[in-house]
């Protein structure tokens, strides 16, 4: 056999996505120039261990494993950057089910929560394996929002914060829709992790079974980031009323954008479409998020799957079509 041909990539972006795609497409990769111009070149501490908490890579990887995956993840469960565990539960898993992932065995159990800077959360993620491959979807009907659900949480702070958040966000939704329920999940003691914080995750469910989510967390930021950029607004946390209004507006913003998933889940949606068998998948998303665009590019590079992208000016959404790469769960043992 010839020498291994590596795919050469540059930069630190989308490290997880690249690792995922290279694993599933079994393409060897070399990533150069990771933060070459930075003060501290190379990988950050959190990137050195391959899998961080609540990574979408893991859930997609788990689908194509040899045996069903069950893993206990520790660290930060709710963060202002990545989607929180609640969103993961309410939305991400629902998206997977659309693609023919068996519902049993697919779950996320929150043992305890952890917010930045210290984390201390713990969840158990279990992912089943797909029997053969995913199923292609035709998912362009976004429907209308019929109910809004949500989970708010607070760790090491008073429940009152949650109530205020819920109250203020309900204030916005109630003018549009009566079916709004936001549950509180106050954690205390060991279950509350190591640092104080509170937040909320909202999900809008539409008549056609789409789940659109938005979430936020209020907590002290992690140290290395504060050192980088936010020294002026340091320790300046928002009051809960504003948080409630903001998150409600954020959800409304996501709904406004249209599409069958919200902007944070676009990447995952594209990935799943690309992994489908060689059938046409058709999906509708709102404005393409930068992460989604990046994902699309990587999918093309690794899997050779291109999407036909067509804007739908009447609704301001984008319709994407693709033929999957026909990825099969080859590692599964045939009996």
């Amino acid at each position, binding site marked *: *056999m010839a020498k291994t041909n590596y*795919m*050469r990539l*540059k*930069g*630190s*972006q989308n490290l997880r996505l690249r690792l995922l795609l290279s694993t599933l497409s*079994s393409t060897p990769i070399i990533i150069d*120039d990771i933060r*070459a*111009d930075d003060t501290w070149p190379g990988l950050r501490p959190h990137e050195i261990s391959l899998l961080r908490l609540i990574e979408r890579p893991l859930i997609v990887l788990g689908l194509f494993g040899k045996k069903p995956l069950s893993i206990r993840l520790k660290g930060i469960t709710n*963060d*202002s*950057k*990545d989607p929180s565990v609640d969103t993961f539960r309410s939305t991400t898993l629902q998206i997977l089910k659309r693609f023919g992932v068996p519902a049993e065995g697919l779950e996320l159990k929150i043992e305890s929560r952890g917010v930045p800077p210290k984390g201390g959360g713990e969840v158990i993620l279990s992912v089943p394996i797909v029997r053969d491959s995913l199923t292609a979807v035709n998912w362009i009907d976004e429907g*209308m929002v*019929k109910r809004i659900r949500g989970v708010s949480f607070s760790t090491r702070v008073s429940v009152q914060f949650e109530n205020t958040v819920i109250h203020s966000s309900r204030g916005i939704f109630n003018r*549009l*829709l*009566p*079916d709004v329920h936001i549950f509180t999940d106050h954690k205390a003691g060991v279950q509350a992790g190591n640092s104080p914080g509170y937040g909320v995750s909202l999900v809008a469910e539409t008549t056609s079974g789409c789940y659109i989510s*938005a979430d936020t967390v209020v907590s002290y930021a992690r140290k290395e980031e504060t050192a*980088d950029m936010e020294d002026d607004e340091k320790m300046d946390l928002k009051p809960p009323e504003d948080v409630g*209004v*903001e*998150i*409600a*507006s*954020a959800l*409304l*913003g996501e*709904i*406004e*954008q*249209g599409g069958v998933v919200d902007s944070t889940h676009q990447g995952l949606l594209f990935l799943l479409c690309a992994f489908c068998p*060689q*059938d*046409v998948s058709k999906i509708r998303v709102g404005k*393409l998020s*930068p*992460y989604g665009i*990046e994902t699309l*590019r990587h999918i093309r*590079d690794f*899997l*050779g799957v*291109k*999407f*036909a992208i*067509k*804007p739908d000016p009447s609704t*301001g959404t*984008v319709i994407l*079509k693709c033929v999957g790469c*026909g*990825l099969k769960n*080859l590692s*599964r*043992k*045939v009996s």
Partner: protein
Amino acid sequence: MAAIGEEQSHKAHRSRQAGPKKKGKASKKKKGQNSEDNKNQSQNPKAFAFRSNVKAKRLQSRAVEKEQRKLHIPTIDRSTGDPAPYVVVVQGPPKVGKSLLIKCLVKHYTKHNLPDVRGPITVVSGKQRRVQFVECPNDINAMIDCAKFADLALLLVDGSYGFEMETFEFLNLMQAQGFPRIMGVLTHLDKFKDVKKLRKTKQRLKHRFWTETKEGTKLFYLSGLIHGKYHKREVHNLARFISVMKFPPLSFRGSHPYVLADRFEDITPPEKVQGDKKCDRNVIIYGYLRGCNLKKGTKVHIAGVGDYGLAGITSLADPCPLPSAAKKKGLRDKEKLFYAPMSGVGDLLYDKDAVYININDHFVQFSKGADENGGTASQGKSRDVGVELVKSLQNTKYSIDEKLEKSFINLFGRKLDNLEVDASVAEHQSCKDDEGVGSDEESGDDDMDDPGSSDDDVNVEGNGTMETQADDASDDEQEDLRGNFEEQLEFHNGRIRKKAIFGNEENEADEQVSDEDGGDDDGEDDNGEVDEETSGSDYSEDDETDEDMEDGGMGNAARWRESLLDRTVSRKNTNLMQLVYGTSTSKLAPDMSEQQRSSDDESEDDEFFRPKGEGSKPSQIADSWICTSTFLWKQKFTEGVDNGNVDIRDDETDEATEPKTERNKANEGSFFEKLKEEIELRKQMNLAELNDLDEATRIEIEGFRTGTYVRLEIHAVPYEMVEYFDPCHPILVGGISLGEDNVGYMQAKIKRHRWHKKVLKTRDPIIVSTGWRRYQTTPVYAIEDRNGRHRMLKYTPEHMHCLAMFWGPLSPPKTGIIAVQNLTNNQASFRITATGDILEFNHATKIVKKIKLVGHPCKIYKKTALIKGMFTSDLEIARFEGAQVQTTSKIRGQVKKAAKDVIGGEKSKKGAMSEEGIARCTFEDKILMSDLVFLRAWTQVDVPRFFTPLTTALQPRDRTWKGMKTVAELRRELNLPVPVNKDSVYKPIERKPRKFNPLVIPKSLQAELPFASKPKDIPKQRRKPLESKRAVVIEPHERRTLTLIQHLQRMRHDKEKKRKQKEQEKRKALEAQKAKEELISKKRQREERRDRYREQEKLKKKMRRTAGD
């Protein structure tokens, strides 16, 4: 193994001597004989109605089960449009008439005489069907490959000789590929003079064929030759059968694209070849795409050569198209096309070192001279003087212009690239051009019909050179063209084209890369909108050129990117602008000047640096929501505030009703029907969605469709492939899907073929064929024990499946696998050694074998012993702490620890024991010094990480490929004896009777023992006692007394018995009496109790009442 060279003797089959099987056969025969009688007798239909309920039920369930067993999971057929020609492989042992059959069939279809059968021959056989005939060479490698692409196999058998091994080998090869259709053809039947013998032979062969395949498989008889051809009628019949054949979908082929090359060209620049004859070559392979869609960037495996990336794919006009759909019966003569470039009938003729372009005319066979040094000398036996003359003329011309011609070929490759730019417009024409007809406007495919094209090769070459000039000139024009045909260019772009574009623009691109990299570093995951440069431009040339073109101005932007841009623009126009500002700015018209783009980028960038968790700027949205009218929002929700409840209910009812209707549907049709329907639906949807798109995008998205005629460009192929190219050996190019180019361990379930004479030995190299590949590897055989352990086997079981673990390029589970050991063609024996399929692949093996560690005690305490010789170091002992051990006398024990301190103590005493690896073990009883101690364990077996792909296409075809040799072969070659372990030699076992020493109890101990336990010292008697010498006889008196006593005892026993019986009876009666009385008393007691309770209750009530009052 004592008998390595000899055949293994098998137990012969013994037919049943008794029992139901024997009876069954006999009675069946009888039944057949007097079926007439039965018919007469069994007129009463009632007699055969079910008499037993159970039997009826059983029969019914059996019928249902049979029906279910017929069903297969429906598979989706993703191919659309005209299917590729079906491959009909004609296979058989040598000298059986394969070529003649193909010639006859081609003659039947096209009315043309085929001079020579080389390579695939495509024929339009009907309005809807094309057929590609391939002759399978008599070589196991070619047979393996042929089985991989055959849709139908015609197995030719010499009727006068009988079946040969090749036929059965081929059957087995096909079985591993999912069993394509087969038809047997018997030839050489004219050698039989005796009609009866002929009939008998036919019958016999047919039945033999059926046992190997299945009852009712078609076997054709070609009875003889007329004018050197088979009977027209028989060929006609055979053709009819071929044309109505239906082909089942095969799973491996359905999921992998593959191309059977019907044209092969070397396009290496001639300067390079002249410089180094053995330089790597660039080749082009033409053929119909089969299997599934082929995407750009797919890797391919060329059978017998290796894995290569595709440097370019282009779809060409079909050289042998189906007739246009018109309402008429049958085919017109003009539509009876056929295409066989390798056979020399098309337009190209292949020789060893050159390709000749041949304007072919069968009626005037002058251009045959071209391949005089080829194999067609036998064709023209009697030549005219004129013909001779023309041929000689032709010959001289070729030799002069040889170099020119070479250059033509090269240019032709380039030319194709350019022409493909406007492929969508004039693909057909381009195809014509490369066939060299040039000015002729008639389609190149029909050229066997037009005798006018007999103008010779000078003309062609002239054309070629002219083309080159035009080529150079048109290079510039190409630039302009690109503007118009940008979409085609994106994927049709040839390699050379791109290189020309590079130059000074490259630097710019690089600069930009660095710029943008610097700018983006902060924003970890979110980099800018269209700055693809950051996402690694180094790895693929495609990208680079894309960027170049974009930077260069416009035009050639990737379509994908373009649409992205479009979208961002439109997005800006529609929702984003509206949402944020409430007014639309019309300054962003969708023209794509560089400046515009950069401004786009900036604005995008602004947006992308927002925190990710929050969809878009929330405060702004909130504002907008407050400011703008709420009705905009309400569109997105199911209801307004006021009538909310009603709507919700509606939703719920909807939800509730939906599944119900679905369920109803499910009940109507069976599960199977539903599945089929679903698949049909999906297929229709795919078609509809893909047909929406324009051609270029469609190809980008789904790849080239099956059935298209494609041109695959492959670079850096070893020169041997060109050097030893033989058109008679088909070239198979198979696509490799994701993950299949990796190397790893595979586990297969295999079974030694029952006709292979020996069992297979672990680690003996075998040649494995799975997927598209053939490679030699060294498997380790194993079998799964009841507890899931994979135990290594030294040899495969004789008649059972076993697991084989081997290293090699991965192929997906469920793929068939064929193992061969011997590739020589001149051996009579059956060459297929094993068959099976892949179970799974793994990156680690877990095969274990037994290991027995033996030691002996060096010191024994009570139940503890120090064991020596079992381990070599203390580290080993640490590994085995707690392991079970056993002595030969079955005393069980356990390994405790390394016996260091004890030895150390002894050491100080003796100063001799200084070795490591002495273990302290405890046993359930004291062991003896003479005992051996065993430790039974399992040890991991390593599977050798070895495989070599078979490069049979890179060597002369008649030479057998040589790979790794087996140990036995090496021994035979080097004349080495089989090493014999002395301990393993069987010897007669001698067991001496064991002598035990007498038990001696010390005097002091004896004194303390109680008398009973004391050994009694009985003095030895000199003479035997009298009792042992004499017999004792009873006296008559004694006898009488004895009988009397016996009688008396007997009487007493009798009396006792009677008394006991009487007593028992009495007791029984008494018990019955007692029971009766008890019953009565119980009854009475109950009555009493009831009365008492009633009284009490009354009293209580009264009390309560009084208390209540």
